[in-house]
Structures are given as structure tokens and as C-alpha cells.
């Protein structure tokens, strides 16, 4: 049992004990890992669940009649229930397992996009999308003739509803695909309002929850999402596993994406018929071990509780914004009211790459670059930013270390 699970209240020091990697040193310095938005570290519970699967209970799923296969299938399918519980889906059949959030969006772009959108329909994305929620729609546009429209963001990094109105004005928009939390600016978008907005205009909505799911309780029914996607690896789970949630009626109407074993009902040369969702969308041997790892990750965050996680990250973010305000020449990008534990910044005369390298020398891991959001960089008038992002294991002391680290970087550049 992990330390965190036994703790009554949120105790970051006990949580840190669950993450073996946090005891590591880098260049002889204690690791200060502020790159969780790229991918989170893994708690012992996830590592153990995966190892246990491989050591004690493993076989291919669904098609086997023997003990190991039946038990493994049960464990695999039980995670579908866990995911449904995590986001409060109305049914487990609304949960499709993919490789990552990127594949989830591509699945929608192919299966929903090519079959249920037609040339002349429009898809709207925002100016602050990760490439994962932009490129698939560009590819759909180029292959299938739908129009791709961009809704503006305000200078504070929030959705510009006037621009949204304008994009929807001609009634052609059939899908709004938008982030639930920006991986650059940290802004949360008003998911409920966006869903109501799209639905009122006859459009469906996809929320890219790759970042949002990590920091807060997400309830797809309360939000009213048609599609919701995320990756396991940012939620303290393994790589190789992602999730697509889609409302049942929509999934039922979608043709399969990939063909192969497990997604069929019957196969003959002239005609094959498809399994019902979610299996229709899971061709071939799934990421069994990783799904089981994701299940352990969900148990882990649920045991801590999203209220505690959100409160911890809110406090950290506030502290970080205060600390960074003290660093001369540093500007934080985006000032959204509603934000999560991701902060991008630039520093006068010091390139983000140099910041990242010089912080790394001090054991502090931040990300630098365009964060897979090139068009947003253009909107912000920068070519790259440095980004610090927080997880359940991040401490105030680490944020203080970031601040002193940045001051030291400035000394090098003095």
C-alpha cells in the first residue's frame, strides 16, 4: 500500500515516497522534475501492477478460454470500468483504449470525420491547440474537403467567444475540437459553456483533456462532452495507452478505424461485419500490460482524491506565479483566470534553450521549445518558451529552487 493511500490529508512528502525516480540525482544534484506536463513520473503502484501482470497473470485477452487469458481479460476489462468511473461516463462501452491522446483524436478525425462529416462542413479548433488537435484536422481537411477554422484566443490566453460566434455564424460548423487545458498557457477552457455553445448550434464537441484530466475531476456528463480524449502517461500511468471517450450513439454510428483481430463480428472475403463499440475500435492485441498499469494509476489518483490534487496544484501555481514575478526580466505567458499547474515564461535576452540547459545543470528539469504548439508561438510573438509544470509530487521547495536556479542562469548571462 502506498504511503499516499494511507495518508488522511494530502502529504506531499509521503506522496514523493511513492515515486522511486524522485530520489535520483542529476549531474550530482537532486532531481527537481518540473516537466510533468510532458509526461508524469510513475508511482510504485503502477510499476508493481505492470510487473505483477507479467510475472503472475499474463496471456492474450478476449480470445482465450484458459485461466491466464480469462483472468487477464477480466483485469483488462476492469480498467474500462475504472476509466468510465474516473470521467463518469454513462457506460463502460463509451471507453475506447488507444495508444495515446494523439491516436484518440486521429481515430475521431478518421472514423467520425470521414464518415460523418462531408465536404463543406467545417471543424473549428482554437489558437492554443497542441499539434495533436490541429494536424489531424488539417489532414482531414486536405483529404476530405472539410473546412478548418481557427477560433481566436484573447491576450490573457482564454477562448474569445466573440470570435467563436463569428466562426459558427454561417451554420457550417459540425465539430468544435478544443483543448480543455492548454499545455502552454495552463488555461482551462470553460468546457461546459463550450459544449452548450456547440450543441446549441448543432455541432458536436471534442475536448482534448490530455492536460486537464491530470489536475481536476472531469465529469463528461456534467460537461456535456461528445468526445473526450487523454493519455495514460500524463496521468502517472504508463506510455502506450490512451483513452477516447465518446457518447454511445456517436460511437455506434462510427465505422471502424483500424482493421484486424478483435474488432470484427464475422469476416468473409466479400464482407466483414464489425463488433459493437468499444471493441470495434480496438484492432489487434491491445496494450494489455499498459492498460493494467493505467488502472493502477487511476486507483492511485483516486485514492489521493482530485479535490486534494486540485488544491495542492492551485497553491503551487499561485506560489510559482509569485516567485516568478520576482525574477527580473521574466514574463509569464497567459494570464487566464482559470488555470492549472503549467507555466510558460520567457526571459529577456536569454533563449529558452539556454534556460533549460542551465537549469538542468542544477538538476532542474523544465521543457523549452514550441511545446508542439507552433501556431500558438506565433500568436504569442515568441519562437519558444520555457515551461515548468507540476504534479502531485511537486513541492514549494522545488519552486523556490526554480526561482534561485533562474537567478543563477541570469548571472551566467549577466
Amino acid at each position, binding site marked *: 500500500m502506498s504511503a499516499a493511500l494511507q495518508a488522511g490529508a494530502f502529504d506531499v512528502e509521503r506522496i514523493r515516497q511513492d515515486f522511486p525516480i524522485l530520489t535520483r540525482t542529476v549531474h550530482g544534484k537532486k532531481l527537481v522534475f518540473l516537466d510533468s506536463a510532458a509526461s508524469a513520473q510513475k508511482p510504485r503502484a503502477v510499476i508493481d501492477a505492470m510487473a505483477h501482470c507479467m510475472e503472475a497473470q499474463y496471456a492474450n485477452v478476449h480470445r482465450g478460454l484458459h485461466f491466464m487469458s480469462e483472468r487477464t481479460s477480466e483485469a483488462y476489462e476492469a480498467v474500462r470500468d475504472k476509466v468510465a468511473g474516473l470521467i463518469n461516463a454513462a457506460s463502460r462501452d463509451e471507453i475506447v483504449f488507444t495508444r495515446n491522446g494523439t491516436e484518440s483524436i486521429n481515430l475521431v478525425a478518421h472514423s467520425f470525420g470521414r464518415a460523418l462529416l462531408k465536404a463543406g462542413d467545417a471543424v473549428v479548433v482554437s489558437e492554443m491547440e497542441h499539434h495533436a488537435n490541429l494536424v489531424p484536422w488539417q489532414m482531414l481537411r486536405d483529404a476530405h474537403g472539410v473546412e478548418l477554422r481557427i477560433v481566436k484566443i484573447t491576450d490573457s490566453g482564454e477562448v474569445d467567444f466573440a470570435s467563436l460566434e463569428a466562426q459558427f455564424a454561417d451554420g457550417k460548423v459540425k465539430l468544435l475540437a478544443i483543448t480543455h487545458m492548454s499545455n502552454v498557457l495552463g488555461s482551462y477552457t470553460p468546457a461546459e459553456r463550450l459544449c452548450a455553445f456547440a450543441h446549441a448550434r448543432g455541432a458536436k464537441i471534442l475536448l482534448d483533456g490530455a492536460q486537464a484530466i491530470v489536475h481536476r475531476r472531469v465529469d463528461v456528463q456534467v460537461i456535456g462532452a461528445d468526445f473526450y480524449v487523454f493519455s495514460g502517461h500524463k496521468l502517472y500511468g504508463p506510455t502506450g495507452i490512451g483513452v477516447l471517450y465518446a457518447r454511445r450513439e456517436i460511437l455506434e454510428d462510427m465505422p471502424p478505424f483500424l482493421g484486424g483481430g478483435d474488432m470484427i463480428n464475422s469476416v468473409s472475403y466479400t464482407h466483414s461485419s464489425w463488433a459493437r463499440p468499444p471493441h470495434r475500435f480496438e484492432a489487434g492485441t491491445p496494450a494489455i500490460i499498459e492498460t493494467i498499469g493505467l488502472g493502477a494509476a487511476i486507483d492511485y489518483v483516486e485514492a489521493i482524491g482530485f479535490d486534494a490534487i486540485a488544491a495542492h496544484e492551485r497553491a503551487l501555481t499561485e506560489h510559482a506565479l509569485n516567485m516568478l514575478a520576482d525574477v527580473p526580466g521574466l514574463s509569464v505567458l497567459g494570464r487566464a483566470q482559470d488555470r492549472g499547474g503549467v507555466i510558460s515564461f520567457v526571459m529577456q535576452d536569454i533563449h529558452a534553450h539556454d534556460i533549460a540547459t542551465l537549469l538542468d545543470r*542544477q538538476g532542474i528539469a523544465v521543457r*523549452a521549445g514550441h511545446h508542439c504548439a507552433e501556431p500558438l508561438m506565433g500568436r504569442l510573438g515568441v519562437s519558444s518558451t520555457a515551461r515548468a509544470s507540476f504534479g502531485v509530487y511537486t513541492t514549494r521547495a522545488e519552486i523556490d529552487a526554480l526561482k534561485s536556479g533562474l537567478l543563477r542562469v541570469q548571472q551566467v548571462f549577466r
Partner: protein
Amino acid sequence: MSEEMTQLYQELIMARARSPHFAGRPAAFEHHAQGENPVCGDQVEVFVGNAQVRHESRGCAILLASADLMAEAVAGKTAAEVSELHAAFEQMVETGQTNPALGDLNALAGLWEYRSRIRCATLPWAALAQALGA
């Protein structure tokens, strides 16, 4: 300031990044070429004329310093000599082994530990090779 921190970002590099000696587009030149790093959008343009190289660079300190030290190192050299130096430079940043033939360029040897930054230093060289038609 800890020694590790200043190992790569040593005085020479910082000086050249801050005040390059060979920056700016010349009025006349024979060849030129541009390089861009897609990861960060950093750009360098090199201009060759009169056996001299100048550069216009937008990027990190490593890129700026590397472009400027390159311009200095190749001054007066033949295309074949430049190409030799380029190869030696690539090997030096990949391995961290300094090479007497590289002179001041050896200041960038610390890069080998930062695999993803190596590109910042080699970009000007790639642009120069392109400009020389190599």
C-alpha cells in the same frame, strides 16, 4: 556560480553570443544559405564572399556563439578546408574530445553531454556547407 554551470556557457561563448564579431548581412556576397531548427524555430543565415563568412542569427547562445566562432575559424579557408573543419567540429561536439585543429571552437566541446543541443551548434555549419554547395 558552480563550475558545472559555466563549463559549457564559458566566457568565450557568452561574449560571442552577446557581441558577435561577424554578425550582419554584408552589402555584397557570393553565396548564402539559411538553416532552421524546427524544434525551436531558431534560424541562421550565412553569407560567403571574399573568403569571409558573416551570419545573421536568431537563436540561443550556443547557436549565436557557434555561428560567430565558425565565421572566425573559416576566414580565408578553401572550401575543402572548411569541409574538413566541419567534419572535425561535428566529431568534437559528438564526442566531447577537443581537437587542436579546432582552436577556439573547442569551447563547444561540453555540448556532447546535451545531445539535443548539438543541433544548435551544427546548424550554422550545415548552412555554410549548403552555401558552399557541398
